């Protein structure tokens, strides 16, 4: 039965029937074109990996594998350690995720479980507007308006927390311009909220309504229904969408380049200026050459590898959750 449904009426090429010879040339050419367009995706991904790796070989031969783990970055004296940038990328992405995920999941629940569909649509438009604002506009606003504004808040928080063990460790540090790890993390959080929200919403919308009605029938409040019926179903899908947001935050370039402070530093102080991999590539690629340029391209390769892995894992989670929803 299922074989009969899947049989392709136009695909006679495999059969010994004389019809196979009558399939016109134009038809076959169109099929090949479509296949070529599909394969283009794989070709581009492979080419990205190969060509950028080739361009960065002189970094690896110059610094060895320790190039990634060394903190010594000084182009003037030919030292290209990437650790400070890896650290900055990780910290800003983590800050962004920690700030954006609760908001995004709450928004997704609001849109699917609380607000009637008629009202949900305008709310979705508003949230999507965050994604329409280009990265460079977030950066422009971040450095000219937002950073000077949060700088006062930073300094009052930092002075208020002096002496308190863990908090002063995280939120201390002096800052003169407001450009910092935390500023970059905040702006990245604004930027990834729409994508995490829309993916979580899609996942949560697949929860079978019979489960939800069952929970209500047992006398659950809406919150108890969400915890008991919605959450177990959508858990892995939400984890996947969070990972996709993480990948987005790590690769975000221009906004981070403008507001992160542009000073390679490894510090626990979130309010002090730092640097991230995409930001240093954007800011310094133009004036680089030789090993310096190879090191910047090498960081691009690293970024590509990390985001590909994060995306593969994330898509795995999302697909698993989709399969489970279909099976239920």
């Amino acid at each position: 039965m299922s074989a009969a449904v899947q049989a392709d009426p136009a695909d006679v090429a495999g059969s010994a029937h004389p019809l196979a010879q009558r399939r016109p040339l134009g038809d076959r050419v169109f099929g090949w074109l479509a296949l070529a367009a599909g394969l283009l995706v794989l070709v581009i991904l492979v080419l990205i990996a190969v060509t950028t790796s080739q361009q960065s070989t002189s970094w690896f031969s110059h610094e060895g594998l320790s190039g990634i783990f060394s903190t010594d970055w000084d182009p003037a004296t030919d030292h290209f350690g990437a650790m400070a940038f890896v650290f900055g990328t990780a910290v800003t992405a983590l800050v962004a995720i920690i700030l954006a995920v609760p908001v995004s999941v709450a928004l997704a629940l609001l849109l699917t479980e609380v607000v009637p569909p008629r009202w949900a649509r305008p709310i979705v438009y508003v949230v999507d507007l965050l994604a329409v604002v280009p990265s460079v506009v977030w950066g422009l606003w971040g450095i000219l308006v937002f950073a000077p504004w949060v700088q006062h808040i930073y300094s009052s928080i930092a002075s208020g927390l002096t002496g308190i063990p863990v908090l002063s460790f995280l939120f201390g540090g002096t800052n003169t311009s407001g450009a910092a790890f935390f500023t970059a993390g905040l702006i990245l959080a604004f930027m990834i909220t729409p994508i995490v929200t829309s993916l979580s919403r899609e996942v949560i919308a697949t929860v079978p309504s019979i489960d939800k009605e069952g929970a209500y029938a047992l006398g659950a409040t809406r919150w108890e229904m969400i915890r008991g019926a919605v959450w177990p179903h959508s858990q892995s899908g939400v984890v996947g969408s969070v990972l996709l947001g993480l990948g987005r935050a790590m690769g975000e370039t221009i906004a981070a380049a403008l507001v992160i402070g542009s000073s390679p530093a490894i510090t626990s102080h979130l309010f002090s200026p730092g640097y991230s991999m995409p930001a240093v590539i954007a800011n310094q690629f133009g004036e680089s050459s030789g090993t310096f340029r190879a090191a910047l391209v090498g960081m691009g390769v690293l970024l590509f590898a990390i985001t590909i892995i994060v995306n593969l894992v994330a898509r795995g989670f999302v697909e698993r959750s989709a399969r489970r929803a279909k099976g239920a």
Partner: protein
Amino acid sequence: MAIAAEQPGVDLREPAGWRRTKNKIATVLMWVAFAAVLVPLGFVLYTVISKGAPIISGQFLTGSIPPNIMPANFGGMAPAIIGTLEITALAAVMAIPLGVLGAVYINEYGGNRVLARVIGFMADVMTGVPSIVMGLFIFTIWVLHFGYSGLAGAFALACLMLPLVIRSSYEMLRLVPDSLREASYALGATKARVTLTVVLPAAIAGIISGALLAVARASGETAPLLFTIFTVEATNSNVFSGATTALPNQIFANASQPYVGAQARGWGAALTLIAIAFIFMIAARVSTARFTRYSR
């Protein structure tokens, strides 16, 4: 039976006490999350409009880019506006047909083949590749051999748009009912003819809308253009050769300038860029609303 009579009366009122309070808190927190999104959005849009609108004038839209020290009422952003429109259009011309064809392969030709599923999966993964990596890629594969040009920038933007177009077109092709395809096959049409004259027209509204959203997203991208068009101040109407400029790159350059005039032109450019992206987005919504035939 007697047991039923012995049971305590079932309380059908709303849950009281702590359970009810928790539910209230959760609902309030969800609305707080919405407010948390509204505040930065309102803040950034208000700033861009209030600082950008006074700059926008006929002169701003048609004038050439002046030196950064010049005050705000000097010159304009015409080279960048022209560059953005040219590069985005060229990228769209490359990415949209290829993306739609790719989606046709996945949905119409792939069937249950592993290759089709791999291509679909990798297109999803490709949407997560950072835009700056696309810029580095085109730099190494094109700019190193043929130099900076608008075309190189368009290649980078097209790489960014391609997976988005594939994704959205695939979703739309999936909605086209099989009965349409079967009816055309029964009339003796070839597969290419069925796809081109029946399936694609049926899904065209959604495909256009997805493509426009991809264009809107690409038009605001800076990072892929940094190393492909090189950002010069002069107008370069030849998109196929020579360094050129685009709005996002000009904003990026002006954002780190200490001069008030340059910053003001940056705000004007930001408003122009948001307006361009917004027009594409509204066009996408209109296209979905007016021409949709099938939906889930």
